[in-house]
């Protein structure tokens, strides 16, 4: 389990197979809902309850008693290498922060940078923009793909961008174009972090925001390369935590 700032992600793993995944909103006392979801995943996988070992990571990991705890950096490193062994850089675009982890040739963490002081580009940013646009956050993923001309957002700040979005909506700019402009904002910030790391090797995108196809497309354009995208980018931490418990469930 990856108990993040906004979402708690669960991955049920057996050996080298990811059997089932699920997520719930993070709350102050997550243990109840988390165990409930774990039970549902076991049922889905056709496994009996009680034979499961728990590992937790994420900012709220201490709130899950009875689990082996590990740092996000450790979990993400393991998860990325498991999902795509040649990975050298993992960029986790999460609910309230963006993190970049550099791995050495053996898959061990070599360096990392965290940007958790600024909300731009995070899941929080996208939630705010969805509200400003009057749409469901899920709509943001594919809405921009047909946009002809991305709206130019003249700021890198969530709060100022929100005002610009409100003005653009009032001026009847098509929502797809506004969303495309917002995706470019996210891409600029993420790619700036990637460029600082200066790597030419495989870069994996992880985190909930990486599930947004529009953002991923914008990152590809800004980076001039295709990053590696696992099937469930928001599960990288949870999978990594599960894997680290070794063979078994």
């Amino acid at each position, binding site marked *: 389990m990856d108990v993040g700032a906004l979402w708690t992600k669960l991955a049920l793993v057996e050996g080298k197979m990811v059997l089932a995944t699920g997520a719930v909103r993070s709350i102050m006392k997550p243990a109840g809902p988390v165990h409930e979801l774990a039970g549902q995943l076991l049922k889905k996988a056709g496994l009996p309850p009680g034979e499961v070992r728990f590992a937790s990571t994420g900012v709220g990991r201490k709130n899950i008693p009875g689990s082996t705890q590990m740092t996000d950096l450790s979990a993400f490193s393991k998860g990325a290498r498991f999902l795509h062994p040649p990975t050298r850089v993992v960029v986790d675009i999460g609910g*309230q922060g963006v993190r970049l982890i550099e791995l050495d040739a053996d898959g061990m963490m070599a360096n990392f940078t965290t940007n958790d002081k600024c*909300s731009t580009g995070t899941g*929080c940013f996208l939630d705010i923009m969805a509200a400003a646009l009057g749409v469901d956050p899920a709509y943001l993923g594919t809405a921009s793909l047909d946009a002809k001309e991305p709206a130019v957002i003249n700021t*890198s*700040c*969530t709060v*100022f961008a929100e*005002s610009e979005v409100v*003005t653009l909506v009032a001026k009847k700019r098509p929502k797809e174009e506004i969303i495309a402009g917002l995706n470019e904002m996210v891409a600029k910030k993420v790619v700036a972090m990637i460029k600082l790391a200066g790597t030419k090797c495989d870069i994996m995108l992880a985190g909930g925001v990486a599930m947004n196809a529009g953002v991923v497309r914008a990152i590809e354009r800004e980076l001039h390369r295709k990053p590696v995208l696992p099937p469930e980018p928001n599960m990288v931490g949870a999978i990594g935590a599960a894997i680290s418990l070794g063979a078994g469930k």
Partner: protein
Amino acid sequence: MITAGIDLGSTYVKAVVLVDGAVKGYGVSPTGHDHDETARLTLGSALQMAGVRMEDLGYIVSTGYGRRVTTLAHETLSEISANAEGTRFVARTLGVRTILDIGGQDTKVIALDEGLNIDNFAMNDKCAAGTGRFIEALAGVLGVGIDDMGPLSLKSKSPQRITSTCTVFARSEVITLIAEGKPKEDIIAGIHESLAKRLATMARKVGVRREVFFDGGPARNVGMRKALESELGVTLVVPERPQIVTATGAAVLAARRLEKAEKR
């Protein structure tokens, strides 16, 4: 000689009408979506207060973020220059060497030399947490009116530290503090302290020399003044109407232009 200055900020538009070297009328309006329209309305209010008509205006100078958008102005002037001009007009003999301006969406520090000319400056317009927007956003969360933030914060005995450096995260932090039952006055005092610290950090890079002049809309906030004075260790010079200093500067430049034109 009648001139006007219009300061088209991102949050508020300010207009000042100068009649024979004295401020006779002014107006302040929320910017909204149409800068030009708001500029027109705001100038209208200022003209009305001054008892003067649009046709009487000899020259109009615009400044601020939206200065090029308005069709009303004969000339545009940068906000930094306009603020310095306005400060010279309002506080010429007070020995001002540093101007601290908190705007709706930016903050500026302007260093002046002995001749009150601009020596150096710094501006932040990238991050809302260092601007008036920070106070506005958090006041919203607290359910406190902007004009009440100052007086309420003076009641605080123990300011509550706000650790978030991002306005968005600070909102969550304040919501949590309210849920924990922390007194509103303490939270507000903490908000002012946060902003004061950020502004002071920027100011020290430029160099803070007395006397320090404090203007911009948030300078009307007594709590903000107190927090800034505490952080910098100086008593601030605050004009009677801090929000219109920059627009006044634009009007003063307009008067100089008109004087020059009339001499020819």
